[in-house]
């Protein structure tokens, strides 16, 4: 599954939000998007999700144009957005349920892998923030689309939980490597997780830089302390500083 966006532009009335974005997510690739807040990241996701239609340019999934078409991607939002009246098991199959009968066996297997087997019958209010995000991620995995769009999924978590969640995400992802498009505003997070990083400018948004992350997989936490990691982080920080300063 590959995503290709060419010459994408979107404005709301007089306000140009996205000026021109070209980006690509190849099959089995993990791509992160870094950008200052208000840089139209959410608008970009709404365009990919088909909630908005582009003014210019095209969005293609496997060489097929999907402008304005809904239900073709898996999505994980910033806050877990679990339904409080559904049990955890019922929650994780929600997205799959929209298209056909969900696969409960697969759901149980993934919950068990996430260490949530004993919470199958529990309700979301009994879970911690990190657990809820795991449930939200499994829900996205279970819907059959093979492009995963994650919208700052860990930004609401505390630092300890976040590092654990990042490692957990990689371990699950490496099993079947669905293509991922990951929005974040943490440079470290992008470097630790992604194969490639797009740095966005502030509004009206363009792609400021594209960085290929050279680290091999599977990645360990010790990577965060290496010199290469630090240098890359500094380089990206330079790009972002220019955006803030301008």
């Amino acid at each position, binding site marked *: 599954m590959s995503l290709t966006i060419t010459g994408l532009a979107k404005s709301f009335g007089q306000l140009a939000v996205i000026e021109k974005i070209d980006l690509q997510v190849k099959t089995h690739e993990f791509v992160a998007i870094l950008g200052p807040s208000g840089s139209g990241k959410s608008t970009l996701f709404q365009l990919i*999700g088909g*909630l908005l239609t582009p003014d210019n340019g095209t969005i293609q999934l496997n060489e097929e144009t999907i402008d304005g078409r809904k239900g073709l991607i*898996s*999505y994980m939002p910033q806050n877990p957005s679990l339904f409080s*009246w559904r049990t955890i098991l019922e929650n994780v199959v*929600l*997205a799959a349920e929209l298209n056909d009968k969900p696969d409960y066996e697969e759901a149980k297997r993934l919950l068990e892998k996430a260490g949530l087997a004993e919470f199958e019958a529990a309700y979301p209010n009994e879970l911690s923030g990190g657990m809820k995000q795991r449930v939200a991620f499994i829900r996205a995995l279970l819907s059959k689309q093979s492009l995963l*769009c994650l919208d700052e999924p860990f930004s609401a978590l505390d630092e300890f939980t976040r590092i654990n969640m990042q490692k957990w995400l990689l371990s699950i992802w490496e099993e079947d490597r669905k293509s991922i498009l990951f929005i974040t505003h943490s440079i470290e997070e992008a470097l630790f997780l992604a194969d490639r990083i797009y740095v966005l400018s502030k509004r009206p948004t363009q792609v400021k830089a594209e960085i290929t992350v050279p680290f091999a997989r599977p990645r360990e936490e010790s990577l965060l302390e290496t010199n290469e990691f630090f240098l890359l982080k500094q380089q990206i920080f330079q790009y972002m500083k220019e955006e803030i300063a301008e």
Partner: protein
Amino acid sequence: MQKIRMRGGRSLFFLLVLFLLWELLIRITETPKWILPAPSDVIKEAAASFNDLYGHLLSTICLAIVGLVLGCTVGLLISIILHRLPKVNEVLYPLLILSQNIPTIVLAPLLIIWFGFGLLPKLIVISLVCFFPIVVSSMDGFKQTAPELKHYMEMIGASRKQTFWKLEFPHALPSIFSGLKIAATYSVMGAVISEWLGAKKGIGVYMTLAQSSFRIDRVFVAIGFIMLLSISLFGVIRLLEKLVVKGRKEEMK
């Protein structure tokens, strides 16, 4: 839950104190029974005429429950239609509010003129009283669905129908139940009012008979049973709520 039980216990205790005070004042001032009977007289009368009252009670209970079910079904259907068709909502919602401004006492005789003394006009009265709280509370519930959940449903490509049945409807259940509780208490009042206007049986009939023969003690017996009935219906709805609304302990406290 324990808190509620304790609060219920306290208010029951206070009610007992009030009854005691009432009994005492009646005894001291030697008020005649046909002006205001003492609670003990009312209880005696209730026990004495229970066999007589039983039939009346049963008929009112049936009427109230059938009316409640009918009114709630209609109310829920209307609210779903209005919510899903905003254009219809614009036209009909003001009319719904107007419908509540017609005093039941005025409307009921008209309904009898149009539909006779049968069951139909009574059910119309009760449904008319019951459906409004349901419509208002469920529509509020549908509207107050968390925007981030709605956004999520849109992003994963849910149709409007799926969004309604998987998200908005279950999300509104607590609101629907608060409407139901109000409707349940109204339904008993509606039943009694509709019986005043022409029925062979029912607490309303019993009440009018008692009133016209200055049996104030019987009026109080009737009032007592009406209250008991309202509270029981309220309790049943609460029980249903407990069974149906899940995973929201935090919100329910």
